[in-house]
C-alpha cells in the first residue's frame, strides 16, 4: 500500500460525484417538499370542505326533522282544530265545556300526538309549545319532555309579539333561532305561525325547543385543534354552538365574509355553510400552520428517503470508483517516483483497459530510461577508464624538468659516462610508460622504480638510499602498471624536498595469507622520511595517488592502497591485491 501522494485527484473525483448526485437529489427533495406541501394544503381544505358539506347536510336533516314536527297542525285536522279552540280560549282552565265539543278528548289527542312526536324524534326535543292569538293571547300550551300532559302557562303579550316578530320575515316558513338566554345556549327553537287550513287565519305561534346537544353529532367530522375553531350562528347572528378556542377578532373576520384571515402571526382559512334556508351559518376557521404541522411527518419521511438515496449513491460510488481511484493514484505515485529519479519503481494497477495501458507505458518508459542511463553511465565509465589509462602514461613533468637540468650539469661537467647512463635510464622509463599493456609484474615495477630513483640520485646523491626485495614467487604475479613509482615519487616529494635529512626507501613484495584461506599480494614501500599526520591525508587531494587507487580497483576488485605514518620516523605504503584462490 503506497502512501497517498496525490490527494487532489481523489478529492476532485469526490467533488464530481457530490455535485452530480447531491445537487439533483437536493433539488428533488426541495421540489417534492414544496409540491407536497401545496397539495397537502389544498387536500386538507378539500377534506374539510367535505366534512363541512356533511355537517351541513346533517344539520339540514336535523332541522328538517323538527320542521316536520311543525307540519303537524296541517297534517292532523284535530290539531289545527284544537289550536283554534285554544285561540278561542276554550281550553282555558275553568272554562265550561261546550257540550257538543269533546274538548277533553281533543286535548288528550293533541297532547298524546305531540308527546309521541316529542319522544320519538331523533332530536332531543325539549318542548312543543303553542301561543294562540286572539282572545287567548298570553296563553301558552306546552308539552314538555319531563312533564306529562299539557302544561298551561302565561306569558306577556309583548313576549308573544316578540316571537311573532321573529316569524314575520319568514312568512309561513319556520324560523330557527336560539331563544334561551343561557350562556352557552342549551336549546334552539323553531317558531312558526300556524294558520287555519281553511280560513287562512293565523291561529298562533308554534314553538319547538330542541336541545342543541342533538346537533353536536352533525359536527363531529370537523377537526378542531388549538388553532382552529368551529362555530354555528343562528339567523340573528348569535353564536349558538362553538367548539375550539374562538379568538376574538378572528370570528369577526369570518363573519365579515372573507375567505382568509390573519390573527397575530397565523394565517387562517375560513369555510362557511348555510344549512337549508334557516339563515344559520356554520363557520370553520383553520390555521394554515396546523395543516403544515400535520404534513411535517410526511416531509420528514421525504427527507429520510432522500438521505437514504444519497447514502446509497455514495456507497455505490465508493464501490465503483475504489478500483479506478487506486489505479490512478498508483500511476500518479509512479510518475512522482520517476520525477525523483527512482527509475526502478514498477506500478501495479487493478484495471483491465486504459489505465492498465497507461501504467504499462509508464513502467516501460521507466525501464527504458533506466537502461539508457545505465548505458550512458557505462559509456562514461569506459571513457573515464580510457582517460585513466591515458593519465597513467604521463610522467610527472617536474621530475623531467629536474632530470634534464641535471643532464645540462653533467654535460657541462664533462661527465660523459654518467650522462649517457642517465639518458638511457630516462629512455627506459619512457619505454615502460609507452608500452601497451596496463598489466605488469612486481619485478618490472620495481625495476622502473629503481631507474627512477637512480635519476633522482643525480639531484640528491647520497641523501637517497634504497633497497629492493622481491619476495619469492611474487616477481611475476600480475599487478597494474605504474603503481609503485607514484608512491616512491611521493616519498621523495614529501620526504626530500622539505627536509635535508637523508632517507632510505625500501621496496618489498610478498604474499600474505589471511585466516580464511585467502591470500593477497603486498607491494610495500617504506621510507624513513619525515612522515605525516594521516588525519590530514583526507584533506589534501593527491591526484597521482588517486589515480593509483582507481586503477587498483579496476584491475581487481578488492585491491586497495593503504598508508600509515609516524611523523618524524617514516611512512609505510602498501598495495594489497587479493590473489585468486585457484592460483594458490
Amino acid at each position: 500500500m503506497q502512501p497517498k501522494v496525490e490527494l487532489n485527484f481523489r478529492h476532485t473525483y469526490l467533488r464530481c460525484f457530490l455535485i452530480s448526485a447531491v445537487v439533483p437529489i437536493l433539488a428533488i427533495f426541495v421540489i417534492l417538499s414544496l409540491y407536497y406541501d401545496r397539495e397537502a394544503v389544498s387536500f386538507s381544505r378539500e377534506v374539510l370542505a367535505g366534512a363541512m358539506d356533511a355537517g351541513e347536510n346533517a344539520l339540514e336533516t336535523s332541522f328538517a326533522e323538527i320542521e316536520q314536527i311543525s307540519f303537524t297542525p296541517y297534517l292532523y285536522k284535530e290539531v289545527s282544530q284544537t289550536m283554534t279552540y285554544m285561540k278561542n280560549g276554550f281550553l282555558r282552565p275553568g272554562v265550561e265545556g261546550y257540550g257538543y265539543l269533546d274538548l277533553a278528548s281533543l286535548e288528550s289527542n293533541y297532547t298524546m300526538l305531540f308527546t309521541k312526536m316529542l319522544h320519538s324524534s331523533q332530536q332531543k326535543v325539549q318542548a312543543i309549545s303553542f301561543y294562540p292569538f286572539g282572545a287567548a293571547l298570553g296563553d301558552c300550551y306546552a308539552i314538555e319532555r319531563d312533564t306529562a300532559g299539557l302544561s298551561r302557562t302565561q306569558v306577556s303579550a309583548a313576549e308573544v309579539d316578540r316571537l311573532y316578530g321573529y316569524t314575520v320575515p319568514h312568512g309561513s316558513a319556520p324560523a330557527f333561532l336560539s331563544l334561551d338566554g343561557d350562556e352557552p345556549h342549551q336549546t334552539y327553537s323553531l317558531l312558526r305561525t300556524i294558520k287555519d287550513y281553511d280560513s287562512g287565519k293565523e291561529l298562533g305561534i308554534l314553538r319547538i325547543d330542541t336541545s342543541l346537544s342533538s346537533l353536536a353529532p352533525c359536527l363531529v367530522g370537523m377537526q378542531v385543534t388549538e388553532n382552529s375553531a368551529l362555530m354555528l350562528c343562528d339567523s340573528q347572528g348569535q353564536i349558538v354552538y362553538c367548539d375550539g378556542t374562538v379568538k376574538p377578532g378572528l370570528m369577526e373576520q369570518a363573519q365579515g365574509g372573507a375567505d382568509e384571515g390573519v390573527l397575530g402571526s397565523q394565517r387562517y382559512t375560513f369555510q362557511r355553510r348555510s344549512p337549508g334556508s334557516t339563515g344559520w351559518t356554520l363557520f370553520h376557521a383553520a390555521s394554515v400552520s396546523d395543516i403544515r404541522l400535520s404534513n411535517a411527518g410526511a416531509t420528514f419521511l421525504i427527507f429520510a428517503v432522500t438521505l437514504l438515496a444519497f447514502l446509497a449513491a455514495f456507497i455505490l460510488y465508493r464501490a465503483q470508483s475504489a478500483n479506478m481511484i487506486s489505479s490512478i493514484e498508483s500511476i500518479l505515485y509512479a510518475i512522482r517516483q520517476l520525477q525523483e529519479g527512482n527509475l526502478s519503481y514498477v506500478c501495479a494497477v487493478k484495471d483491465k483497459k486504459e489505465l492498465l495501458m497507461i501504467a504499462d507505458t509508464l513502467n516501460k518508459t521507466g525501464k527504458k530510461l533506466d537502461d539508457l542511463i545505465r548505458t550512458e553511465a557505462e559509456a562514461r565509465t569506459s571513457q573515464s577508464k580510457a582517460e585513466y589509462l591515458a593519465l597513467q602514461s604521463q610522467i610527472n613533468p617536474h621530475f623531467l624538468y629536474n632530470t634534464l637540468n641535471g643532464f645540462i650539469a653533467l654535460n657541462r661537467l664533462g661527465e660523459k659516462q654518467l650522462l649517457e647512463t642517465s639518458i638511457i635510464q630516462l629512455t627506459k622509463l619512457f619505454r615502460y610508460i609507452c608500452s601497451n599493456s596496463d598489466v605488469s609484474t612486481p619485478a618490472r615495477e620495481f625495476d622502473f622504480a629503481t631507474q627512477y630513483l637512480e635519476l633522482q640520485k643525480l639531484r640528491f646523491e647520497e641523501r637517497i638510499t634504497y633497497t629492493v626485495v622481491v619476495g619469492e614467487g611474487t616477481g611475476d604475479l600480475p599487478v597494474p602498471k605504474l603503481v609503485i613509482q607514484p608512491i616512491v615519487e611521493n616519498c621523495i616529494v614529501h620526504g626530500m624536498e622539505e627536509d635535508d635529512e637523508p632517507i632510505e626507501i625500501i621496496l618489498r613484495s610478498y604474499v600474505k595469507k589471511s585466516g580464511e584461506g585467502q591470500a593477497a599480494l603486498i607491494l610495500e614501500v617504506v621510507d624513513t622520511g619525515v612522515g605525516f599526520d594521516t588525519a590530514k591525508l583526507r584533506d589534501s587531494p593527491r591526484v597521482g595517488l588517486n589515480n593509483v587507487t582507481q586503477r587498483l580497483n579496476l584491475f581487481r576488485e578488492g585491491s586497495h592502497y593503504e598508508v600509515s605514518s609516524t611523523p618524524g620516523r617514516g611512512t609505510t605504503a602498501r598495495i594489497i591485491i587479493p590473489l585468486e584462490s585457484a592460483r594458490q
Partner: protein
Amino acid sequence: MEILLVDDERLARACTQSMLEEILSGVEVRFHHASTAAQALEWLEDRGAPDLAIVDYKMPKCSGLELVERAGPCCPGTVWVLLSGYDLADERSRIEAAGVRFTLSKPAGVEEFSTVVSHIWGNGGAMP
C-alpha cells in the same frame, strides 16, 4: 673575486661554477659552496661578504630568499642573485626589498650569467 654558491644540489652548484669559470676566464675567482642556508650564514660570518652570491630559492628548511633577507644587511657590497625553477611573481616585492639584484630562472645558461656579470662589472666597471 669571491663568489658564494648556495644550493642543496651539488650538481647544480658544480654546473653554475663551471659556467661562471667560462665567463670569468682570466679573472682570479675563488668559489665557495654551501649546501644549506645555515652553512652559508656560517661561512659569511667567518669570511665576510662575497662579491657575488648565487642562491637557489628552493631549499629544504630555509629558502634562498630568507637567506638573502638575513644576510643582506651585513653584506652590503654583495650582489645577490636568486636562482629558481618556480615562478616567483608573488614574491616580487619581497625579493626587491631583500636586495636581490637579479632573479634567474633555471636552467640558467652561460648567456644569462654573462648578462648578469656584464651588468655588474661591464661597461667600464672595474673588476675587483
